[in-house]
């Protein structure tokens, strides 16, 4: 089924938001106003948006350490996300999570964790809740090639499979876990093949092609909504930057490999296609770009001018009913 021009334009808009948000995060990190490490999704925007736009706002989503893009892909407002990165009280987690622990419930995100692979069984649980309550909700779970080697991957996929849970396991295979090549540490060439071990479908898709990802994930979502269980989708993609900001090590990838992937930068790829197909005029594309730039700039302003939490707020929300404070002496 062909996508409407509105949906295609929205895909372009969300991909741009992610790219520009990440570029700003990079600049803010360089400036020293973002604490902690950040992992950018630059290069992976198509698989994120293609998958997120195949689900509804009410559907659940789980992310990982490289997850600034996931809530944006699902339509989140940018300002509270940026504020969280800067550790401000106006952030989605009131400045307590920071990058790697964003949880924007307004778009169905159930959160992220810096423990690689930890979201995989949690996604099964969220989907089980939907199933038990008879709700029409699926759960979209993002994780990397590296995460697919953790024990939690096996346990989570097996649970989802035996209980026919409505989960879409979206493996963002960017070829590397930090500096270690998937070719060397994943026993199969295609992670999608691992689906066979759980008796569920495994699909491979070009992660640089937002329309292709959308199509494959839409099929998986339909299957999940029909009660037929989970699907493992492997999107082949690439991250253009370092694994984490400041980890300036590139001896594990070749320049040729990077250049080859840069030629398939998902953003110009989509723009050219939309202009060629007459979906967007050059001017209209330019307008989308200007708007996205303005939105990101506004988010940065909001974040910069927001207050920090007070130190005592570190004790807030530790328990549902506050316990008498026990200090550390």
């Amino acid at each position: 089924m062909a996508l409407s021009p509105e949906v295609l334009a929205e895909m372009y808009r969300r991909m741009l938001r992610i790219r520009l948000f990440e570029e700003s995060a990079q600049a803010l990190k360089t400036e020293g106003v973002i604490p902690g490490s950040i992992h950018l999704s630059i290069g992976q925007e198509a698989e994120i948006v293609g998958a997120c736009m195949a689900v509804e706002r009410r559907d659940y989503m789980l992310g990982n350490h490289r997850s600034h893009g996931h809530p944006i892909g699902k339509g989140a407002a940018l300002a509270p996300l940026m504020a969280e990165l800067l550790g401000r009280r106006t952030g989605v987690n009131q400045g307590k999570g920071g990058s790697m622990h964003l949880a924007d419930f307004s778009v169905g995100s159930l959160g992220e964790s810096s423990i690689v692979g930890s979201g995989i069984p949690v996604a099964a649980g969220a989907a089980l809740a939907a199933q038990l309550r008879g709700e029409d909700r699926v759960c979209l779970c993002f994780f990397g090639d590296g995460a697919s080697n953790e024990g939690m991957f096996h346990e989570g996929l097996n649970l989802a499979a035996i209980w026919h849970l409505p989960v879409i396991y979206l493996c963002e295979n960017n070829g590397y876990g930090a500096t270690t090549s998937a070719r060397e540490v994943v026993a199969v060439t295609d992670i999608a093949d691992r689906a066979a071990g759980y008796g569920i479908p495994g699909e491979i898709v070009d992660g640089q092609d937002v329309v292709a990802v959308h199509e494959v994930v839409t099929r998986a979502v339909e299957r999940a909504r029909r009660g037929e269980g989970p699907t493992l989708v492997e999107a082949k993609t690439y991250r253009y930057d370092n694994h984490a900001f400041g980890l300036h090590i590139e001896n594990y990838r070749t320049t040729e490999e990077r250049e080859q992937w840069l030629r398939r930068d998902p953003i110009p790829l989509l723009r050219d296609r939309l202009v060629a197909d007459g979906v967007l005029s050059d001017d209209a594309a330019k307008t989308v770009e200007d708007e996205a730039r303005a939105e990101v700039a506004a988010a940065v302003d909001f974040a910069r001018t927001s207050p920090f939490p007070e130190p005592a707020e570190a004790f807030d929300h530790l328990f549902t009913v506050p316990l008498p404070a026990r200090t550390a002496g």
Partner: protein
Amino acid sequence: MTTTHTPRPSTLLVPEARPAAEPAPASVPLARALGAGLRDAMAADPKVVLLGEDVGRLGGVFRVTDGLQEEFGEARVIDSPLSESGIVGAAIGLAMRGYRPVCEIQFDGFVYPAFDQIVTQLSRLHQRSAGHLRMAVTIRIPYGGGIHAVEHHSESPEAYFAHTPGLRLLTPSTSADAYLLLRQAIACDDPVIFFEPKRRYWERGPLTAPEDPPPPMERARVARPGTDVTLIAYGPTVRTCLDAASAAAADGRSVEVVDLRSLAPLDWPTLADSVRRTGRAVVVHEAVVTAGLGAEIAARLTEECFYHLEAPVGRVGGYHAPYPAARLEQEYLPDLDRVLDAVDRAFRY
């Protein structure tokens, strides 16, 4: 059940645990000292193998294993998948067949996926096999805060392991101890969790300790002698306590600082001796105070030195909240002021 293990002499003392190669430079960063310890251990014993995420080509995220894969090859410095439970499980299997694996867990919070293997297998296989199996496994964990990272990258999980019988826990605070304790850990036939104070990785010190022969690994060290109060610290808080001792000296107080070095077993004779002399003690660690090592130390010192104590044993440590986002970490970490306040309190009785 038999193993291919060659019996070893006492592993408590490793006389050859002295930097081999060239004459030692006057002072090296703690991380370099660890690298030198790994290198010399690998050169001395072909059964020593390293396993971990990004330890090979990258040389580890903190570069502790830098250059080791080039020198010893991919069969001895193994880039593992993301698989902490797998890394420790595989190390157990290697140890069963006579290897001395050294695992690197990239950051403190990532040890939790491996917790099961450590607690349910590694710690008890020697006893469960009636002494046939030797778990000569070293698990290196960079731990603690102070590097502007988020939770899971700044934690101090040592108490979970101190609670587990069958594990040895070491943590150096100087370059000399980083080298020596790591050599001793690797040579030891028991499982050792080796906690590396990551915010001290770049602090420099001499590579060799002055003592000859070097002290056994379970011996605490009086890092600064004093007469009025004992500060008991380990890993990253030793430096904090030494600074506090200098500051207190200006006020005419003589503060003794004991660096535990070994968290399991604890060196009770050294602790009790110090506290009997000073009559006051404060334990300082980054980990949450509640049910932390300070609780154990305070209880035991109270039992053993009750009539020598002039004041209850004090504790300074992390607050009862998850390690906070980087912006707040200076509030969370025990600093000079909090240590000095606790010292003051000890004089109020």
